[in-house]
Each structure stands twice: as C-alpha cells, then as structure tokens.
C-alpha cells in the first residue's frame, strides 16, 4: 500500500501523540495506582494501629465480644477483606471476614476460629491482597497481633474506571491534536508540496510554469529554487532540442528534423492531396577541398553553402544538413515537375556560385537526387532512399546535375536488393568460388604466385561480375563475411597444394576497406596459424580507399599486419587519388599499376609518361611493382625495360579456377617449384 505524505505525516503524528500520551497516561496511572494503594495502606494502617491500641484491655479482660466488635467494625470497611486478632502465640481469638462482594473476600469465605488462618494462608499470595500486621502490646510486652487484609480490587476497579476515562480523554486529545497538526501541516507543507508536484508534472509535460512564492520559509526557498531549476531546464531543453534537431555547424535542421518535417509534410499532403519534393544534395569532390584547404575551410564552405541554399528557396521550404557534405531540401506545395526542376536549378546555381574560402576562390558543385511525394514514394524512408539513389545516379553523370528518381532506378534498386538477398545465401549454397590470376616475374616469366579473384556462380544469372556484387556486399556489410571466407579459402587452398608438394608461390588477396575496420590483422594471424601459411606468402591487396579512412587507425592496423610479416600491396594505383603522401606515410611492399595504364603502352605517350613516373616513384620508395593487364609482348618489353618486377595478364594466363590453376602450377612452373622446394628443404 502506498501512503501519501499527508497520510504518513498524520500517521506519524498520531503514533507520536498516542505513544506520548499513552506514556504520560501510564505514568500518571502508575502514580495514581501507587498513591491509591498508599492511601489504602494508610487507611488500613490507621485502623490497625487504632485496633492495636484499644485491644489490650479487651484481650486482658477476655472481652472477646468487644474484640469482635473491633474486628467487625474494621471488616465493614469497604477495602478490608479480613480483620483478625491473634494472641502472641498466633491463636486467633477474634476474626471478621467480609465474606462477599469480591472474589478475594469470597475465597476467604466465612471461616472463623482456627479455620481463619488456613483461609488467610490460601490468599496470602493473592496479588489483590495487601496483608498488614500490627503488634498488640501491653506494658511493652507483645500480647497479640492484629492482622488486616486489604483488597486492591476496589482500587483496581477505580483505576480501571479512571483508565477508561483517561483513555477517552487521551483519545480525544490525540484526535484533536492530530487533526490540528495535520491541518497546519496541510496548509504549510502539503499545499506547497502539491503545488510543486503539479508544477513538476507540468515541467514533465514540457511546460514551464512559475510557482507562486508565498512565504519566505524553506518552502519559499524551495519554490524559488524550483522556478530557477524550471527556467534552467527550459533553457537546457531548448538547447537539447537545438542540438537534437539542428546541425551544430550550419544551424540548419539536421537529419532528425528533416525526417520530422517530411513526416509532417506527408501527413499534410496526405490530407490535402498535395505534392512535395525531396532534394538530396551531395557536394562533388568535397573531400578534396577538405584535404587541400583543411577542415576549417571545409566547414566554412558548408556554412556558406547552407546559407546560399536557404536564400535560394522559399520561406516554406526546408534546408537540412544530413551530415558530411549532404544536404536535403524539402519543397512543399509542388504543382508540377517544371516547378521542381526550377527549384533544382536554383539550388545548383546557388552551389556553383564561386566563393572565397580561406583566401582562395572555390567553386563547388553538387549532385542532386529528387524524389516526389506521392509519385516516387509515400514514406519518409522511401523518399529518402529514392532521393539518395537519384543523387547517386546524378553522381555518375557530369558534375552539377539533378536527376529525378525514376521507375528505372526503382527497378535497379529492387534488383540490387534481390542481389543482396541472393548474395547472403551464396556461401552456404556454395555459389562462391576462387579463381587465380597467375603472376610471373616480369624478367624471366617464371611463376611468382597468383592474385585471388572471387567469382559468384549464380544459379540463374551465371557468373556475376565482382564489380556488380562487391559494392552490394560492401553496402550491406556482407563483405566482411565474404572477405573472411575468401581469405580462409585461399589459405586452405595454398595449404592443400603445399601438402601435395606443389609450390603455389605467393597468393594475393584483395581486402575491402570494410574488412579493414574489423581487426583484419587478428583474423589473418589466426588463418596463417591454422593453415600453416608462411606470412611472406600472403599478400594483401589494399586499394587507396582504405587509406582515406581515419589515419591513426589505418596506420595501426597496417603496422599490425606488417608485424605479422605479410606483404602489403597497394592495388589499382593511379586510378584513385594516388596521393603520394599515402606512399610516404604508409609502408607497402608492392605497388600494382592499374591495367588502364598498361593498356595504352607503349603507343600512348600519356600512358608512357604516367607509367614511367610511377616506376620512378616506386623504385625511389623501394617498392616492387606489379603490372596488371599485360596482354601483349610489347607491353611486357616496355615494363621489362622499366625494371618491373612482376606482371600479370592474359599474355601469361587468364584467371583460372582452382583445378586449372593447380594444373598450371604442376605443368608450367614445375622447374621453378622444384628449385624453390629444394631450397626450402635444405634450409
């Protein structure tokens, strides 16, 4: 049972009052009992002394009738149970017993003569009896004793009556005091507390009332403190609301607020049958601006562009920053697609207008994806996804374009989702397999190893190109599981061939940036140990995109992999940012020149220049180089002339499945294998 404060207080007061009053009553009751008993004893003593005083003459004169008169008179007193005169030897010579009127008197009964002593003996220990004894003397000699038995019964009866009256009085006092104290408590404590409780509930509902301060006591102070707290909470709440709903950098609504606004707009448009547009805006090459001008300049750019976007729109439109370089615009009350396009053009124009950032002229561009309600979707999530998809399509086109989400995109998305679902089942269904692209020493064309390639044999689609499913796997996160499977299968294959006495050389496995974030080094160490693969025989091919992530973490993970002594290869060099600072900062063993540069050799002067520069840089950094996509002998000759260490491509072999690669290893490279095995055996 939950008691209110008032009930607890009232109960406590009542208990305290009741205990105090009861203790007080008990004290006075005991005192009264003692006093009454004392008075009783004094009355008995007075009678006893009187009888003892007058009895000697009657005793000496054998005047028993007179003695009987004495004892009878004494026994007639209300509280006297018996009055007995005994001789000095203890023989009773006169006795009177008030034989009725109380249980004690009835126990003594009407005994007389010698029987009286037995009767007295039977009640001697009775708690209601007070036995008094008075010596009867004559000329200093004891001639007898006067025994008086007093009963506490009437005293107790009187006390009980008193107790009852006092209990009634105490109850009345307790009730009165309790009610009075409770009334005072209610006015001075409960009412302020209830006002504060009501105010607290209003605060909980998000309202911030001001509690009236009526007194200067502790409750007044509490009310003031409450008001101050409510004001502070209100301010904090506003701050939290701002933080939760607005972007700290630009002051624009954030993703959450954007979702909320779209949700509200969906409701409104649903009611009115209206349309609205969602624009997903992503800046092009923002990273390069950030990298080249610094983060502060990047932030300054974002703030400026946010303002421009706002300025370019109507008051009813919403501009939000979703994060990074992504913005969202919600344009309600759309009438037709021309109007939507017009807004998109205004947005593109606002973004592309030159800016002065960090003292430099910057021209930003963006890609815009547009989704319409209810044409392309009718939920927040779908609108966002569709606009995002359209934006990605815009990214694939020329910079600074805006694209509507279309049915074709929708179909492509559905296709991607199906692919994602199928890919999830690809490993358990054994649809993934490893192929091996042999690598040779560029000079001798002797076998060096192979790059492991992943193939997905789809039951309906046939082989699905990695370029198609790897991005899907990366987007869904499935790449971690798949990449792990590839690593393990590659190690298992290497160990299998090695167990057959075949030297598979080096196996180069591509590693995704997503895998890299999941403590790849730990897993690599486990697999090397599990399959007995020497670390220098495993080469991990990493694209430049991995290095775009947080540098300290990447550096640490690369350092751990290097500590394992596995070889690190920078893949597809030249196709991405090809930042020379990466090569300086991160230590690699191998650099792989992308096939797109090899394809134009030796005829394309541009490709020759680029490849020459790469070779010069690589050798300068003590990196060995692998040329990808070598298909012609002239290409081989060219790279040989540039002291390229390794090559791969159709000139040597196309990618082989495991069985074919095993045959390749046994046939074409037996000499090398035998020599290497012999060398290892002697070591």
């Amino acid at each position, binding site marked *: 049972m939950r008691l209110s404060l008032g009930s607890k207080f009232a109960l406590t007061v009542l208990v305290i009052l009741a205990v105090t009053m009861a203790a007080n009553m008990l004290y006075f009751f005991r005192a009264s009992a003692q006093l009454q008993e004392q008075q009783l004893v004094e009355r008995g003593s007075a009678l006893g002394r009187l009888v003892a005083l007058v009895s000697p003459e009657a005793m000496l*004169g*054998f*005047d*028993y*009738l*007179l003695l*009987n008169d004495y004892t009878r008179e004494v026994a007639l007193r209300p509280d006297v149970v018996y009055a007995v005169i005994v*001789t000095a030897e203890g*023989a*009773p*010579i*006169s006795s009177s017993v008030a034989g009725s009127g109380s249980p004690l008197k009835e126990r003594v009964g009407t005994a*007389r*003569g010698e029987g009286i002593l037995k009767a007295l003996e039977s009640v001697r220990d009775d708690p209601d009896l007070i036995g008094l004894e008075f010596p009867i003397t004559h000329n200093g000699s004891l001639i007898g004793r006067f025994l008086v038995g007093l009963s506490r019964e009437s005293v107790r009866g009187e006390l009980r009556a008193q107790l009852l009256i006092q209990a009634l009085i105490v109850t009345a006092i307790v009730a009165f005091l309790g009610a009075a104290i409770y009334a005072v408590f209610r006015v001075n404590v409960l009412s302020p507390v209830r006002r504060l409780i009501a105010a607290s509930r209003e605060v909980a509902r998000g309202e911030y009332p001001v509690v009236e301060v009526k007194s200067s006591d502790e409750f007044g102070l509490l009310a003031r403190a409450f008001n101050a707290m409510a004001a502070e909470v209100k301010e904090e709440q506003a701050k939290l609301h701002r933080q939760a709903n607005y972007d700290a950098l630009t002051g624009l609504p954030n993703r959450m607020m954007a979702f909320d606004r779209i949700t509200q707009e969906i409701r409104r448009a649903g009611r009115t049958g209206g349309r609205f547009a969602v624009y997903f805006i992503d800046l092009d090459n923002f990273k390069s601006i950030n990298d080249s001008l610094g983060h502060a300049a990047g932030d300054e750019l974002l703030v400026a562009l946010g303002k421009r976007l706002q300025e370019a729109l109507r008051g009813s439109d919403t501009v939000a920053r979703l994060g990074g370089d992504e913005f969202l615009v919600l344009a309600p009350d759309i009438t037709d697609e021309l109007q939507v396009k017009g807004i998109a053009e205004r947005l593109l124009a606002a973004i592309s207008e030159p800016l002065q950032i960090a003292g430099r002229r910057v021209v930003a561009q963006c890609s815009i994806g547009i989704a319409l309600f209810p044409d392309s979707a009718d939920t927040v999530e779908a609108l966002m996804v569709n606009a995002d998809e359209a934006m990605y399509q815009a990214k694939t086109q020329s910079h600074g374009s805006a694209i509507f989400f279309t049915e074709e995109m929708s179909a492509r998305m559905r296709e991607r989702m199906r692919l994602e679902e199928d890919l999830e089942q690809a490993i358990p269904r054994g649809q993934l397999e490893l192929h091996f692209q042999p690598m040779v020493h560029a000079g001798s064309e002797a076998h060096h190893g192979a790059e492991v390639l992943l193939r997905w044999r789809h039951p309906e689609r046939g082989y699905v190109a990695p370029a198609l499913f790897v991005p899907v796997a990366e987007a869904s996160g499935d790449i971690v599981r798949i990449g792990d499977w590839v690593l393990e299968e590659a190690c298992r294959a290497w160990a299998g061939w090695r167990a057959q006495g075949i030297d598979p050389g080096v196996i180069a496995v591509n590693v995704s940036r997503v895998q890299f974030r999941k403590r790849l080094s730990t897993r690599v160490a486990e697999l090397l140990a599990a399959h007995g693969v020497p670390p220098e025989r495993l080469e991990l091919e990493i694209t430049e995109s991995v290095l775009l992530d947080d540098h300290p973490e990447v550096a640490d993970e690369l350092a751990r992999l290097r500590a394992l002594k596995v070889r690190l290869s920078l893949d597809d060099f030249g196709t991405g940012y090809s930042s020379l600072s990466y090569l300086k900062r991160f230590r690699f063993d191998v650099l792989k020149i992308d096939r797109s540069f090899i394809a134009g050799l030796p005829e394309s002067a541009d490709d020759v220049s680029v490849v020459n520069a790469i070779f010069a840089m690589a050798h300068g950094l003590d990196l060995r180089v692998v040329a990808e996509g070598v298909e012609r002998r002239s290409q081989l000759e060219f790279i040989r002339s540039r002291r390229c260490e390794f090559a791969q491509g159709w000139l040597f072999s196309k990618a082989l499945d495991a069985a074919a690669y095993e045959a390749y290893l046994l046939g074409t490279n037996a000499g090398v294998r035998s020599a290497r095995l012999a060398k290892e055996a002697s070591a």
Partner: protein
Amino acid sequence: MRSTLFVMLLALVSSVHAADQTLTLGVFPRFSASETTKRYSPLAEHLSKRLGRPINVSTSRDFQSFWRNLGENGYDIVQYNQYHYIRSAKSYQVIAHNKEFGKSTIAGVLYVRKDSGITDLKQLKGARVLFGGGEDAMIGYIAPMYMLLQAGLTKRDFQSHFAVTPMNSVIGVYHRQAEAAGSGDAVIDQPAIRNAINPDELVPLAVSEQLLHLPWAVRRTMPAGLRDAVQAALVDLENSESGREVLKAALLSGIGKAQDRDYDPARKMVRAVLAAH
C-alpha cells in the same frame, strides 16, 4: 403525748415527702451505662406512670460503684444478680425475678471444647478456668466454682481467669484461651455467641441446679403499699402490649414474683464459695 404527736407529724411529713420523692431504679452494670439507660428507660417510664411518681434510671460505671451506691441505700428499686441480693438482703427485699428466654431460672455451666478430651471435672486440675464476670458473678463464677468445689477441687487446683461476661468466657474457651468456661446455660444460645463462634464445638462439662433468675428488690424501708404497687407493676408487664414492649426493650421475656426463700439455693452456693476463699 408530745412525743407521739412528733412521731405522727414526722411520719406525715415523711409520707408527704415520700409521695413527692423521685424513685431511683438502680441497674447493675450488666451492660454499658448507655445500653442500660436505653434498655431500662422505657421500663422506668412505665413504672412511673403506674406509680404516679417519677423514676430515674441510675447506672454505674462498674460493679464497685454500683456496690457502693447499693451500700449507701442509693436505690429505691434495684435489679441485680442473685449474689448481690444475698449480700444486700438486710437492706433490700426481693419482690420479683427476671424471665429470660421464657425461663424463670438459670443454671451455672462449665463448658469445655469437644475436642479437649475433658469429660470430668477432676480433669480440670491444673487447667485454666475462665469465669464469666468477677467473683461476684453468680452464674459466671459462683455457680461454676461451687461445682468445682463439689467435685473435690480447691481454688489452687486450677488457674482462675475472669472474662468480662459469661459470653466472653465461652468464646475464650472456644479460642482455646482456657480449658473450661464458667457461664450460664442460656448463654450458649445467645445470638452474640452464635455469631462469634461455632457453639457445636463446645460441650457442657457440668451444669448446676437451676437458680431463680436475676432478682428485683426494693428498699426494705419502702412503704408496703408502694412495694406492692411496684411488684404489681413489674409482674403485670407481660399482660399488656405496652408492657411487653417494655420487656422487649429490656431483653426480658417477663417478670415474675419472688420472695427471699426462692434464692436459698443460690445462697447455699454463695456460702460455700465464700467459705472456700
């Protein structure tokens, strides 16, 4: 002649004086003075009306003062015990006796406890005997002492103690304060005794011959007419409603005529006891 006339005149004067004189009714201190006054005042008033003379009830604090007044002829009419009468018979003439509890006589009794094992007077040798009243108590002392003497015991053979009244002597034996009590035969039936003790625990050891109850006497100098009038008035009490009320107040059931020889049995006991002293 002159002397005869003087005597006649003196007699006349005395007679006239006597007719005007208030009579004094003396009552021995059987009860307290106030009790005596309370009980005998109605009787005095009754007699006064019958005799046409005022009568005062004279009480005594104790037997000594009563005896002194008696010796000084201080009472015209007197109610006392047999011993008193026997001792004062030269000055007083018995005219009536009490009837108490419907009886004109009373006997002296020696009571013992039933559980005392005493069945013979001789067993009282060396015992404590508690007599009811003093040595002039006829029923409480003289009659029981007479029986003891008759049994061959002397006063030295037992310890004599004296209770205030015969009833007290009986109560004393009941409470084992003595082995035998000298008392009267009617005492044991008194309500006061029955209230105080259980009489069934007592038994009479010896009972004397019946003696005429307490005597009423008048001064021997009282004129015969007045004496007879007093006697008639007393004896006549039980014959009227008002007289019975008077008797009831005095705790009497009646008053009968008596003459001196009626007290000879008592006189015999008194002589024997006094001789033994």
